[in-house]
């Protein structure tokens, strides 16, 4: 099929949103969203609350459905439901604002569950992989504890390890530090920074402007359901093009 030829071409976007629209009842939350993310690219999505950033992030693994438009991961359109969708989700890692570690499982079980159940990995192998990832995010000493026994920062690092255990092609971060106490924000951002330097493709919704400036390859600015600007951090923070972005930046960067 000619389409597959096209998909195998080099430099094609890993994540591609085309003319995506979504409504919540009367509220038009996503308006003609077009976004392409290449392999290895770190895209940070910023914008005021209620601008549709999180919703857009969640449409990429179909935790939110869309009304119209097209979303492709690695050239393949998002499946509707069922097994094909589960397979796709296994390739897309997601980190949530509220961590969402499985409350009835230990830290180790949280990380091994999906590799064992979805990838049918051998239990011993899954545990070795999990311990390696937990060591990487610095919480291997907590492996036998329950999630509620860990601090927020530790829980979020476990959540990152849990997503990485599936060896995803792309990682989605939906405001990963917004629910954390201030002193725990950096430990999570450090893990994300390291991940970015290792070449992981990342889409991060965040309010951490320092992280955005340092780590992002590209800033996507959203307001009222539109993508208003896409630029390098230097361009965006020094020379925002729209009044809306200037207004946003003036409010968050003055102190």
């Amino acid at each position, binding site marked *: 099929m000619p389409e597959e030829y096209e998909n195998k071409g080099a430099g094609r976007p890993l994540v591609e949103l085309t003319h995506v629209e979504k409504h919540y009842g009367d509220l038009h939350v996503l308006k003609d969203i077009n976004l392409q993310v290449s392999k290895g690219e770190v895209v940070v999505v910023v914008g005021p609350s209620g601008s549709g950033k999180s919703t857009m992030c969640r449409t990429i693994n179909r935790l939110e459905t869309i009304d119209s438009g097209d979303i492709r991961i690695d050239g393949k359109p998002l499946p509707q439901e069922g097994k094909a969708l589960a397979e796709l989700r296994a390739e897309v890692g*997601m980190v949530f604002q509220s961590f969402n570690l*499985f*409350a009835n499982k230990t830290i180790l079980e949280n990380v091994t*569950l999906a590799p064992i159940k979805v990838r049918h990995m051998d239990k011993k192998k899954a545990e070795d992989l999990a311990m390696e990832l937990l060591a990487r995010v610095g919480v291997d000493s907590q492996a036998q504890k329950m999630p509620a026994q860990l601090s927020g920062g530790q829980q979020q690092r476990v959540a990152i390890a849990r997503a990485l255990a599936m060896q995803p092609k792309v990682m989605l971060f939906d405001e990963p530090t917004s629910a954390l106490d201030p002193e725990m924000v950096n430990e999570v951002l450090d893990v994300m920074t390291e991940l970015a330097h290792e070449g992981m493709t990342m889409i991060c919704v965040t309010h951490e402007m320092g992280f955005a400036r340092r780590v992002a390859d590209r800033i996507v600015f959203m307001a009222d359901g539109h993508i208003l600007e896409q630029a390098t951090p230097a361009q965006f923070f020094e020379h925002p093009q729209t009044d809306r972005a200037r207004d946003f930046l003036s409010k968050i960067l003055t102190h």
Partner: protein
Amino acid sequence: MSSIHELLTQYDVLGAFAVNIELTVFAGLLATVLGIILVIMRISPISSLRAVAGGYVELFKNMPLTIIMVFMVLGVYAQLKLSFSDNFDVNFFWLAVTGLGLYTAAFVCEALRSGINTVPLGQAEAARALGLGFTQTARQIILPQAFRGSVAPLGNTLIALLKNSTVAAAASVATETSSLMSEMIEFHADAIVTIFLIFAIGYVILIIPIGMITTYLSNKLAVRR
């Protein structure tokens, strides 16, 4: 004046309590099985199953138990000719079990559903985001947490069932406690308060441990978040 000792030797009070406990155990088993089926139907993605289970729960939850029990005898047995046994007592016993079980299943379903509602949506989202399917998510993540969250309401349902088992008198089960109490009062009108206290205290003794056990389990099993 009849003494407590006289009353207890003349009447089989313990035997009457045993009948209520049997009614509770069998009706409880029926209600548990039916309740689990109903709650799975209620959360299933198929809307017709949800509607049927929802209709069942609303119907039985809002109907007086006495009416169900009388219907079991006058409707199911006398009119529809469905019976469990040729032995009258055995037949009425199982009709009462069925009526109690059908009624209590609605409350078991609601108790389990309240447990499912204690599981935050994010738990299912995280499981789905990792590629787990609907049944894997339910089995591994949602139901284990939901069950722990339903211990207290299930205990309350069990307590209500034990007390409701006295309504079996309306289904002509003559050997259970409330029937025996009426009989005793009829022949020992001088000892109404004593007779009343015997049965009241008997139920309190049975029910207090159930409450204590469910409170203990509910705290011990609670999901820490």
